[in-house]
Each structure stands twice: as structure tokens, then as C-alpha cells.
């Protein structure tokens, strides 16, 4: 079961929660390592960030090309 890589970007520093589990902060230096599959990514506090969540499918990512999830400031 391969490992996938994910980076979460936001213009404001926020806590990153994946599947309701705290995993760190936005724009961390190291990509987040997860098992292949579908995940719900949220920021907390959610105020001012859009969308309210991302559903991502992590598949065939690499360290050099991780999946990048972008939250914007409304």
C-alpha cells in the first residue's frame, strides 16, 4: 500500500484537520504522508477560509509532486 503526499496551502496560518484529526498547520515544510485514498480536509478555525472543506483523492502522488490543496481567504 503506497504512501501518498499532501500539502495544504492557505494565505493565513491555520490548523489543518483531516478526517477530524489534527495533523499540523498550513504550509508545513514537510508533506503530510497518508495511505492512498479519499480524505476530507478542513481548516480550523474555519472563519474566512473557503471552501469549508476539500474532499481529495490521494493517488499516485510523489514526494516531488504531492497533491496540493488550496484554501483561499474570502
Amino acid at each position, binding site marked *: *500500500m*503506497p*504512501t501518498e*503526499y499532501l*500539502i495544504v496551502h492557505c494565505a493565513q496560518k491555520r490548523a489543518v484537520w*483531516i*478526517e*477530524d*484529526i*489534527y*495533523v*499540523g498547520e498550513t504550509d508545513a*515544510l*514537510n*508533506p*503530510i*504522508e*497518508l*495511505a*492512498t*485514498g*479519499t*480524505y*476530507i480536509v478542513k481548516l480550523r478555525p474555519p472563519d474566512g477560509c473557503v471552501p469549508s472543506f476539500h*474532499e481529495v*483523492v490521494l*493517488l499516485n502522488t510523489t*514526494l*516531488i509532486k*504531492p497533491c496540493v490543496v488550496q484554501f483561499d481567504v474570502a
Partner: protein
Amino acid sequence: MSGCAHYRVNDALDGPALVGAYRFPEASPAPGGNTDSLFVCLTFSGGGTRAAALAYGVMEELEATRITWRGAAKPLLAEVDCISSVSGGSFTAAYYGLFGDRLFKDFRQRFLDRNIQGELAERLFNPVTLGRLASPYFSRSDLAAELYGRTIFDGQTFSALAGRRPYVILNATDLATGRRFEFTQEQFDVIGSDLSRYPVARAVAASSAFPLLLTPISLRNHPAPRGWQPPSEYRSALNDFHNNRRRWTWARSRLDYHEQKVARPWIHLGDGGMADNIGLRPVEAAYRFLSGFIRPRIIREQVDRFVVIAVNARTDPQEQISRQEGPPGALAVAYKASTIAMDNYSFDTIQLMKDVEREGYRNRRYLADCQEKIDAAECRKPPTLPKIAPLWTCLVEVEFEALPDKDEREHFLNLPTTFKLEPKDVDDLIAVGKRLLRESPAFQRLLKALAGAPPPTGPQEDPNCG
């Protein structure tokens, strides 16, 4: 007395299980105590008293092994965060979880040196017990659970295990599905039940309910408490049938209990060895999946070294059925059918953990090699490569096959699976458990690495535990 005998039914949850629930303890360790940065899991296989004694020997060696980690000197045993166990190994795991270092004072007398199966047989033929066994709701394993509870585990429930490390995962097998069933609150959440009030002895009896000899332990699949929702990751993982069948199966196996309460109001559990005879699967799942207790700690970079010590009391007895021309009888076939998967699946699980360990090493090498090529190219503006958390993994296997002496190896590989061993055999098993761990090349590399030796870098060096 006879018609009303009933096994102990697991309690329903009256709300989401929060305070005092049996989950991996989240609290930060005390200064100088068990750290997250060195995360150690032990797995104890099945194999009756043989497995329990081998695991006990490894525990003694871990207690005797002194390390210095983050400036604090301590026995390596003090860094053990979880123990996952099956069948005979569950006796050692549960006893240590409940009573800590008392294991080294009286576990031999309370379990290893006893003729447990003789005591069980004695109770089976007691006239009062015979009456109780006439009830359809009371069986041999219920009797065994009473014996274990009274004479080994002091009637303790899972609330006595909660809130401290090591987190002990006792594993059984759901006979309806063949899937692993673990005695944790996460598992009990989906059956709407409160594990904290459930006797540890019944979990151990389920984990060691050897097919045919002992009967299943039964649980009620209670309605979910008001307001309870399954963990978010289970729902997401149901989308992964094609992309990640293992994750999908893991989520499906949990959610089925929640979604099929009408069709499956009762759960009947047999020996954990039928689903995974070495107890590695829960550790692998906790490492792989975000809802597990290891993966979030790795992502948050709380873990520097992840160590798994797999104690496997697998034997390879002289096979009898291949020596005769006629086909084996129905009883022999039934016995084989119920136990044959144990060893095959164990091999598969060990390989899975080795793949995990290799994958991490390959990723680090890949990045280092890329960086080397970039540096050699002398670019005017070299690109910045991403980094991954510097996690070092280590799998140490303790098993009889590693014994170099053929006669000694064959002696241990032919020990029976029973709850009665001669004291000399118990002595030998404890001694060989200690020696196998001490002499394991992977364990020796781990101790050197903990003492500050540089990690292996050459392509021919074994990266495991370095």
C-alpha cells in the same frame, strides 16, 4: 442453577464513550517517562503457554536492557507504548497491562507454571458446573473466563487498563466474518458497547478460544447511543474500493457492525489466531491509517523512531497426516481447516511490516540521491526539494527459526500448543526468548543506533533498525 446460567453480556453505551474509555492515551508522558519520540510496539503471537512464556522471556530482556533516550536512562521496557496480542500471548500482555512489573514477581506462579487445562477439565466435570453448562448461554469458554478472572486477572475490567501505557490490544476473530476483532473502545463504539466495564479475563478467553477445544465468547451488538457518529475516516474510506482495498476493508469491517445491527445482533468470537496469529495487523493499521494511534503522531513529527518487536512462538511440528496413505478423518480435517490459515497469514503479515520499513528507507534514499544529483549539476539556482519527516523504523523478529543450532531449533519447533508445560520447558522458553532478542542482529543494530551510532548509508547495508 442449570437453566439460568448465562455468560456476562457486554454493557450498552449510554452516550459516546469519552472519560475513562479504553483508547490509546493521548496525554503527554511525564518528564523522563515513556516518550512518543521512541515509539515501541510489541506483538505476542498465539501458541498457548509456549507463546506466553516466550513473550515473558522477551519482557524480562527488555526490562534488563538499559538505554538512554533524550537524556533519560531507563529500561527499554519503559518505552513500550503498545502491545498487541493473540491467544496465549494475550495472557502475558494483559497481565503486564494490568499489573506492570508485578509480571516479573508472580506471573510464573499464577499462569506459566500452572496446569490450566487440567484445572479447566476438573471444573468441567464438577456436578454444579455440568448443570451450568447445560444452559445454551453458558459454555466452556465462559467457564475458562471465570477461572482466568478469579485466579489470574483478579476480576479486573478494562477501566483498570485505561489511561496508561502500554496500550494493550487483545485480538480475537469474529467467527461470522473471519475478521479480526480487537478489544478497544474504537471497536466497541461500533457495537454500541462500553468496554471499560468488561472483564479483561473474558477478552483473554475470547482471544485464546482455540477452535474445537474451547467455545466462542459472545457479545451483544447494541444499538448506537444517541448522537454517536462513526469516525469520519470510515465514511471516506468506503470510496476506496478500487484505489485502496485494504483501507476500504478496514472501514467496512468496522461499519458493518454499526449498519447491520438488526441482521447481526450477536457477535461470536474465537481464537484471534484465525485472523492474525502474530498480532501485527492492529499495529500495521495504526501505522497506516489516520484514525490509528500511530499515524497522526508520525504526521505531527512526534515520533523519531518506530520500533516493532514481533514475538512469534510459531512451531513446525512433525506432520502426521502426510505419513499415512489413507486420507485424514473428519476430526483431523476439521482441526486443520480451522488452524491452517494461522501460519500462512502470519508470514504475510511479517512481510507487510517489512515492506512498510523498506518503503520509508527508499523514500529517504530517493530524496538524498536527487539532492546529490542537483548539487553535482551545480545549478545557478538549485531547486528546493521537499522533505519528509525523519522517521526511522525497525522490525525485530523473535522466533525459533532464528536459532542456529539444529537440535535446539527442532526442540522448540516441536513444542506443543497447550496450557500445560513442564517447568523445565517454561524455563527454557523464557531463556530462549531472552537470548533470541539479545542476539537478534536487528535488535543489536537498534541498541547501537539508540546509543548514537550513525545510520547505515551504503546500498548493501541493512537499513532495518539502523
